[in-house]
């Protein structure tokens, strides 16, 4: 079985073969030292380079949520990944979006303002806590999509951030 995953490091290819109870696994063409494989109900046990590992794998669409000995990583299975790619493409646009559902408490900037990376833009209230949304990069606020009191769903646009003509470093 040939699988392609998207990880924080990029695309990785994994090949898995089983024959007579022996599993062979390669990663990006390199054979790994994998032994003592057991898989049941999303619980995966194996030894990697001689060290026993315990993993849980859960599936949500193309996502594979993996916990290995207390650490979690979310991978994406490439051939089920089309919708997710489209979704992610939207994130690179000018829209700054709500990362969780909540209520707009206060706007700290207006259209036309020039902001620096890290500057607070909007105060949201979610789960009874106030959270500041900061600018991911410096730029100019092109448009504000929300007003105080508005209830937002996850992914709703907050404001549009454009590259500013003049650099604002040092301000």
């Amino acid at each position, binding site marked *: 079985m040939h699988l392609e995953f998207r990880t924080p490091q990029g695309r990785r290819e994994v090949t*898995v073969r*089983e024959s007579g109870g022996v599993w062979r696994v390669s990663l990006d063409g390199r054979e790994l030292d994998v032994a003592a494989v057991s*898989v049941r109900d999303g619980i995966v046990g194996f030894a990697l380079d001689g060290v026993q590992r315990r993993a849980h794998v859960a599936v949500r669409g193309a996502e594979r949520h993996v*916990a290995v*000995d207390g650490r979690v990583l979310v991978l994406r299975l490439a051939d089920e990944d089309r919708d997710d790619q489209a979704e992610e493409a939207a994130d690179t646009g000018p829209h700054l979006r709500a990362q969780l559902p909540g209520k707009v408490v206060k706007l700290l900037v207006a259209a036309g303002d020039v902001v620096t990376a890290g500057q607070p833009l909007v105060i949201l209230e979610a789960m009874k806590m106030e959270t500041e949304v900061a600018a991911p990069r410096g730029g100019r606020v092109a448009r504000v999509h929300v007003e105080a009191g508005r209830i937002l769903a996850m992914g709703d646009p907050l404001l549009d951030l454009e590259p500013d003509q003049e650099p604002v470093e040092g301000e």
Partner: protein
Amino acid sequence: MSAPFGKILVANRGEIACRVIRTCREMGIATVAVASEADLAAPHARLADRTVHLGPPPPEASYLRQDLIVAAALATGAEAVHPGYGFLAENAAFARACAEAGLVFIGPPPDVIASMGEKTAARRLMEAAGVPVVPGATLPPPGPGGSLDAAAVRAAADAVGYPLLVKAAFGGGGKGMRLVEAGQDPVAAAEAAVREATGAFGDGTVYLERCLLRPRHVEFQIFADRHGRVVHLGERECSIQRRHQKIVEETPCPALDDGLRRRMGEAAVAAARAAGYVGAGTVEFLLAPGGEFYFLEMNTRLQVEHPVTEWVTGLDLVRAQILVAAGEPLPWSDADLVPRGHALECRLYAEDPAHGFLPSLGRLLRYREPSGPGVRVDAGVAEGDEITRHYDPMIAKLSVHAEDRAAAIARLRAALRDYVVLGIATNAAYLDAVLAHPAFAAGETHTGFLQQHLSGEAAAGDAADETAALVAAALNEAVRGTAADAARRDAPAAPAAPAIGRFRLKGLD
């Protein structure tokens, strides 16, 4: 001994409702749970003998509806109400409403809740009783729309001195709190605190308090009955706080020796006596590096972190709350109150340290708790549950007990490693980074610990070994691909592959 009550309504949700229901069940007391629409199948709603539906998910439409809760207690024949913590636990009006309806409120008398709930009044009372308090100043109540007299705020702030904290007079749990350093604007901070306090507690009154440098947060568990006995059950060190929210708690405090523990414990008992306290409460102190301590506030409820006290004393605090509420004397001799070993607790939050600790919402695709000797989990969620934006993002408390502090840290880290939560982000790796820090191992904790040692990028903790995660995902995919769903569900599992390659002892078997 027959049960002191026949039936108790638990006016809360999540882990604390489950915690209270368990002890009721063991005491032979029937339980009534309350649940919002979002919680009808939640663990606390399932664990009780009956569950009353309160209303829509927002707390103001459900868990904060005093009228509905009192009516539910009367309709189901409950004799007493346990408020847990948060929601209505420190609401004097609710305690009064219970009493007026003929229900026993499991907590202190309404007047005590009111006087301790108003932090400024509590400060005055403690000063009068000779308990040291942190330098501070009151502010006039905010005007309509939450506006404050800017000049008055600046004058009061300058008098108290910087750095200072703006705190909600009726608050708790870090909400409605703001730090103001020298040179920062105290007015903006005070107004933000007023907004948050109004939303969280229904009252926007705030006050100022001097912010000590590198203090420890050390609190004492106190317990009083209606027969004049007031005792303390030792301290809890709760200095590891993120945005004034405790995330790791322990007992004993590494900074206390027997003498200081005795003096602080006596002050805590004096504070409880001055307040006319009844039931379980917590007296919070700030402990300066030089050993001076100051009354901070008194929490008139069971504390989130009570399990560490239960671990080292072997006592059940909820059981004692219920007995005391029924008018019985405290069930413990002085010899019962000697702590033993070391206990640690950490709070597991549905939040994402890699993205500014934003709350992480969604379905718990996988949720498996650790177990083992000296390990306790207090959880209010189960696999498949949805974490919604309506409630506090704390999904569970993990606590351990061991012979000494080093063994307790090792045990907590091992248990965290066994904790499996998939589908939402949690602070588990961040908690592990705290526990793994040399300064934590050395017991050098103070309320600025996280800012000093674990701010910025390091906060995320290590990610999983990517190679191991890829191998696990691929092996799982291979088995998913070859076994039909139905077959895997009803028939014996796909057999575990018996390959042990390099570990087979060649020539021996």
